[in-house]
């Protein structure tokens, strides 16, 4: 019994040393001289908490070992299909009854689902570590913004164009770097992502610099504006056509439904791709590149296809993102965004599409729920990332390989 006590004491002492200079002694500016103010309460709380935790840790470990995790009920394929159908119907109907703020958060979650599915192709299926994914996201958003600004193209015209543009960037940037392996690829992609953001910030004449490009229009409903007044004088609006009074919340619901459509499309495309020879090649590449090469598959071409397709998804999401916000600027496309999307893929379970969807929803919704702790939001976010990796590194819903179970 003395061993845990000594451990707890050591841990408490360590906590005291670590928290005193940063929590206990606060630097304050008095006129323009630096003074220290002592707040011992947080330090004492931290020390006591660590001490108690270290004391009861052996007990906790033993009791958790006895608790059996409840088994997920397995559904037969027929039931699975019905479950998915039910969820889809729920997703379609819910926004009409939900609060506007919640529908908007759901739209944001759907954007991150698209991004997560795209990065999942690169990181999860093909095993390529991409830390600059946000660059392709930015290309998609800015493509729509620039095409609208210079040529007046609408959202529906720009959507395929933005996707193709991002894919093109993926091809061009991917080509020279895909010879690199592992961490070097990660660093180069990080460099590319930052270069794209810095260029967007500096080339003010073309991209608007730090102000970005604003007044980007929302998508129309098959060509008809959904707004208080039509953008071109004389045209009807969506509400006038259906003889409804205009409500701002309808655009929010429309954006949500569009995002849902795009997310379903992304999911459908990526799951089809996984079952095609291309997808099989990705998996082979991820498992063992050298064996892959020795079997006659060209790794560079496989990597390039994964990279390009992943970028295309980012372009799709970027175009929609620009439409939702009405403004694109370089601040939205920092390295932290790349890290967030990577966290979504890893948290969900690399290569697992359902896991990625779940993780995207959690990582978007949870910070919103924690808004009441506004100051501690990011702190908790970082902590949750660390804890998730320690507790369940394989992800929330790890991918299951297609396999056969022999009947007993």
């Amino acid at each position, binding site marked *: 019994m003395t061993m845990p006590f000594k451990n707890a004491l050591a841990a408490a002492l360590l906590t005291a040393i670590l928290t005193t200079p940063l929590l206990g002694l606060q630097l304050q500016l008095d*006129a323009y001289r630096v003074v220290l103010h002592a707040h011992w309460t947080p330090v004492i709380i931290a020390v006591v908490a660590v001490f108690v935790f270290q004391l009861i840790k052996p007990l906790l470990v033993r009791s958790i070992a006895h608790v059996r995790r409840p088994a997920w009920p397995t559904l037969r394929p027929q039931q699975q299909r019905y479950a998915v159908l039910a969820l889809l119907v729920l997703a379609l109907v819910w926004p009409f009854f939900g*609060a506007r703020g919640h529908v908007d958060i759901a739209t944001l979650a759907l954007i991150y689902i698209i991004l997560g599915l795209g990065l999942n192709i690169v990181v999860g299926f093909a095993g390529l570590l991409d830390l600059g994914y946000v660059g392709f996201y930015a290309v998609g958003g800015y493509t729509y913004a620039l095409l609208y600004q210079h040529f007046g193209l609408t959202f529906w015209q720009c959507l395929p164009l933005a996707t193709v543009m991002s894919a093109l960037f993926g091809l061009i940037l991917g080509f020279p770097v895909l010879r690199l392996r592992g961490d070097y690829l990660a660093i180069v992609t990080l460099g590319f992502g930052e270069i794209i953001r810095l260029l967007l910030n500096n080339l003010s004449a073309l991209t608007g610099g*730090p102000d970005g490009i604003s007044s980007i229009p929302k998508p129309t409903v098959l060509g008809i504006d959904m707004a208080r007044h039509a953008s071109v004088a004389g045209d009807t609006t969506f509400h006038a056509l259906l003889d409804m009074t205009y409500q701002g919340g309808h655009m929010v619901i429309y954006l949500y439904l569009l995002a849902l459509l795009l997310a379903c499309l992304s999911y459908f495309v990526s799951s089809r791709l996984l079952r095609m020879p291309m997808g099989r090649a990705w998996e082979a590449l991820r498992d063992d590149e050298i064996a892959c090469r020795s079997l006659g598959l060209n790794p560079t071409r496989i990597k390039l296809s994964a990279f390009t397709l992943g970028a295309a998804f980012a372009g799709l999401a970027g175009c929609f993102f620009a439409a*939702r916000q*009405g403004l694109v600027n370089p*601040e939205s496309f920092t390295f932290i965004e790349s890290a967030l999307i990577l966290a979504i893929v890893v948290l969900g379970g690399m290569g697992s599409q359902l896991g990625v969807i779940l993780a995207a929803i959690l990582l978007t919704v949870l910070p919103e729920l924690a808004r009441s702790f506004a100051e501690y939001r990011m702190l908790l976010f970082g902590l949750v990332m660390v804890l998730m990796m320690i507790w369940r590194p394989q992800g929330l819903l790890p991918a299951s390989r297609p396999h056969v179970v022999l009947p007993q």
Partner: protein
Amino acid sequence: MKPLNCPARLVLALVITAFCGRIAQAETVKIAIVGPLTGAVAQYGDMVKAGALTAIERINAAGGADGNTFEAVLLDDACEPKQAVAVANKIVSEGIKFVIGHACSGSSIPAADIYENEGVVMITPSATAPQLTEAKPRQFIFRTIGRDDQQGPVAAKYIIEQVKPKKIAVLHDKQSYGQGMATSVKAALDAAKLPVVVFEGIHAGDSDYSAVITKLKSRGVDFVYFGGYHPEMGLLMRQAREQGVKALFMGPEGVGNKDITAIAGAASEGMLLTQPVDFSADPANVALLSAFAAQKRNPNGPFQMPAYAGVKVIADAIAGTGSTDPARVAAYMHSHTFKTPIGVVAYDDKGDLKSFKFVVYTWHQDASKTAIN
């Protein structure tokens, strides 16, 4: 920021309102205060928060606006447009009708679209990009701070007429406010045919500006206009003195923060800046400053007073119209003048401050300033 500050403040505010609010017709009007509470620019969000919360507390203590008490709702957008849109939708969802914020131009512009569409009054104390009010005609969007293209010409005029430097460098921090100010000043200087030999951007988070300072030294620059905030300006001046560069520095109101003397020390003596007329000389504002001190809030900085003024304008407009309907409040704001800590406030039809007066100050190393012009 003490962890226990915000909930304690709100409880205090609610207790005061419970005591002082009138019973009949007393509504609680929620005011959302939106800005970066986390992230790299949180110190500017803190400034907006300090000003707005102090105003709400004082107005509630004095009986509220037309009997209505204010309730502050703090929301964090981290200066990210994507979070700003989510916050704006949340505000509309919860039926909040008045917003002080958003703090950053990049966040204000997409949020303003939503507020304008839904009839929510937004007063920004710190977003200075012209696009906010220029791009589309808006009824509900206001500022309590001058635009970049209102402040720039004042600085340029002073440079052209009074300083008459031989070689000018215009620098900025590559962000919306700084680059906007620098571009505005440069345009005016170019029009007056003054030689601008360097027009470049520095990275706001960097600590070491020796390279660009050496560049200034070798070009023989004797005047530097920096569009940006006090941390970078302080470093530029300090490192310039270290390298023996004897140029005169000038900046917009973002550099007029007493902290700059802490960073630049003796090098901050003689810095020029443009700012709205100094409120702290007015004896009526002594009580105001002590209200800040009582809550241990920092009153120094470019955004505290504009945020305070924003709340006061809303309160006076509610009292003036006798209603809390945002459409009527907005119409009242467009057609009346208000007395606030930042001076007399009147709005043009775009929601910008009409003829907002900027004054050129010279800074002293004891963190005081004197007006010249």
